[in-house]
């Protein structure tokens, strides 16, 4: 099928030699992290090159961790280095790239098509990628936090999928009491001071309707924040979450659920394939996926993740680079990434595509969660906000600070970061 597509593409390219240039091909450099399946990206670029003979795309692969990826881009872009033309940026970065003038705004190139072009993406992603009215990046890969649960255990105890955190705690305690396994955790979530801890803080806070930044100013609701932190602390105190939750990072949750030691897990989309396909998985076929629980009186929200294509403001081949990212943002490419890499699409229509439904059937259940996901604070000083929140969430879960003290520091640090 792929070969046929490529052959067709080549045929089309050969057929359209009318506009071919005799000059040297334009060299574009794309930068992608190790976690974004550079192998699939390379194949997609090869298809692009076949369809656009005047352009050569070279892929540079960076670190797999978002932090190192960003540190490198920080260095290169501060120096206004023109070597990179196109890169994938984390969903929390567009505001910083816009403020720093590192990304080329794409609205000029989209022109009149802008509305229709952008309407195909999920609204949350469009909002996160549009800063100050300018389209800074195009959504490529989506992600969200899901509530994974042990279907078999819930069935055994006749418990429904919990809609609130309170229900979750009760169900978990009941199952823990019944199973007599001291190592069985009721719920696992990120307590270590990694980026995931920002989501840990935000989930209950958002559920109650809180927000962090509005119009460039801190808009903090302490009562809701304390309620949120209090909820997590309650889970630890009641033994639903383990005592050293402050040591649990994103992948620890996944590994422990996979080893069968956890009833409910708050984790990202990548975990599903591990649960179902890893050789050492104890939970294959026993996993359900649901929306995250809500706080009392609140609604169910999830945390948005994902990666987006941006064009470097220092690129020497901007029109060609923009062409490339537009091509990469097509539904067909999104479908390929879903089928081959199990990446959630950022376009609703792709979820209904028959190939996707066949390759990744669980995406059907995943769509409502992805669509309801909220973006972490969209601000140029996101790194400072993230640090303030994750560090203090960790100290609260480690029992070193009270929620009140932690919130003091969060407010202080974010206020300082937002200073003009």
């Amino acid at each position, binding site marked *: 099928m792929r070969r046929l597509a490529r052959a067709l593409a080549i045929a089309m390219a050969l057929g359209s030699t009318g506009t071919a240039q005799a000059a040297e091909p334009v060299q574009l450099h794309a930068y992608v992290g190790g976690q974004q399946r550079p192998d699939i990206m390379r194949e997609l670029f090869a298809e692009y090159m076949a369809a656009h003979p005047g352009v050569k795309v070279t892929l540079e692969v960076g670190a797999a961790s978002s932090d*190192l990826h960003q*540190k490198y881009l920080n*260095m290169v872009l501060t*120096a206004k280095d023109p070597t990179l033309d196109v890169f994938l940026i984390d969903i929390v970065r567009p505001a910083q790239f816009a403020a720093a003038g590192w990304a080329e705004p794409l609205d000029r190139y989209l022109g009149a098509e802008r509305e229709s072009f952008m309407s195909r993406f999920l609204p949350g992603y469009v909002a996160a990628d549009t800063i100050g009215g300018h389209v800074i990046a195009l959504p490529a890969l989506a992600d969200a936090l899901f509530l994974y649960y042990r279907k078999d255990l819930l069935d055994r105890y006749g418990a429904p999928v919990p809609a609130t955190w309170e229900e979750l705690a009760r169900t978990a305690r009941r199952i823990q009491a019944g199973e007599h396994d001291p*190592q069985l955790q009721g719920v696992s979530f990120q307590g270590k001071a990694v980026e995931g801890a920002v989501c840990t803080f935000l989930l209950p806070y958002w559920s109650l309707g809180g927000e962090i930044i509005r119009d460039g100013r801190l808009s903090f609701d302490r009562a809701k924040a304390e309620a949120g932190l209090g909820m997590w602390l309650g889970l630890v105190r009641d033994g639903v979450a383990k005592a050293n939750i402050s040591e649990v990072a994103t992948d620890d949750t996944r590994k422990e659920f996979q*080893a069968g030691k956890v009833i409910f897990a708050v984790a990202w989309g990548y975990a599903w394939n591990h649960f179902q396909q890893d050789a050492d998985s104890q939970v294959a076929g026993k996993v359900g996926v649901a929306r995250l629980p809500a706080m009392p009186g609140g609604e169910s929200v999830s945390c948005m993740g994902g990666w987006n294509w941006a064009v470097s403001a220092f690129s020497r081949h901007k029109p060609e680079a923009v062409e490339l990212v537009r091509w990469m943002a097509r539904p067909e490419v999104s479908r390929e990434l879903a089928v081959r890499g199990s990446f959630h699409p950022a376009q609703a229509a792709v979820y209904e595509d028959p190939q996707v439904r066949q390759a990744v059937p669980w995406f059907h259940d995943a769509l409502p969660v992805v669509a309801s996901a909220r973006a972490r604070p969209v601000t140029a000083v996101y790194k400072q906000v993230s640090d303030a929140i994750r560090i203090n969430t960790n100290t609260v879960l480690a029992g070193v600070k009270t929620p009140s003290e932690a919130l003091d520091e969060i407010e202080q640090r974010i206020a300082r970061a937002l200073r003009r």
Partner: protein
Amino acid sequence: MKAPGTALRWLAAAIVLANGCFPALWILATSFKSEVELTARPITYWPRDPVIANYVAAFRDQPLPTYLLNSAAVALLSMALSLTIASLAAYAIARLELPRRRLVLTGIVAVSMFPLVTLMVPLFDIMRGLGLLNTYWALVFPYAVLSLPVCTLVLVSFFQEIPRDLENAAMIDGCTRVGALFRVVVPLAAPGVFTAGTLAFVNSWDEFLLALSMNSAVAYRTLPVGIQMYQGEFSFPWPTISAALVIGMVPVVIVILLFQERVVSGLTAGGLKG
């Protein structure tokens, strides 16, 4: 110095061995474990079912030999540069009449007082401007400067211990001062030279931040950066990384052992001892 009792010696030896080898042995053991065994409770020390899959993965997932070669090249070049320049400077400071000697010494040591991270952004700018990014030189020059203070000071303290008469004898025989430096002083200060060399080598081998920024291209990546690449966004595959670490440590250990021999075996026949 008269040797202490045998029992005490063996006890001390045992402590030294345990202290030094323990983490290294742990890395070795982990490199043969499977991922699942790491989070087994109770924890295991030796692998239950050893696998060599990690070593295969280490070579397969990243071009480890390339990283080793790059690290070795950068370390050796910067070591050579550092040693040469440091020898000349140390001789001037230790032996010659130098106005404002204290100031010069302080100035050289002051280089080490700036954390590398604060110099990184302008340094990157310079290297980019010179077109040296993703070459060995982008790292060799900064590393040589980084090791310069410690090498200079070590050599100063060694050069000072050497009696002047030996140099004077050489110069009476028709040698110039610089010639005396390289023909008499340096060989006699061999323990110091090899020590300084080892320090410079290991400093370069260990450095991460600068290497990450300057040489991001795979072909020029050094080992610490390369090993970080095994890390995923969420995952830290200890078994594979341990295997890569074992492979990466072997050359350093060999180099240090070789140099160490020279330090301890005492090439100073006659001159200093007794």
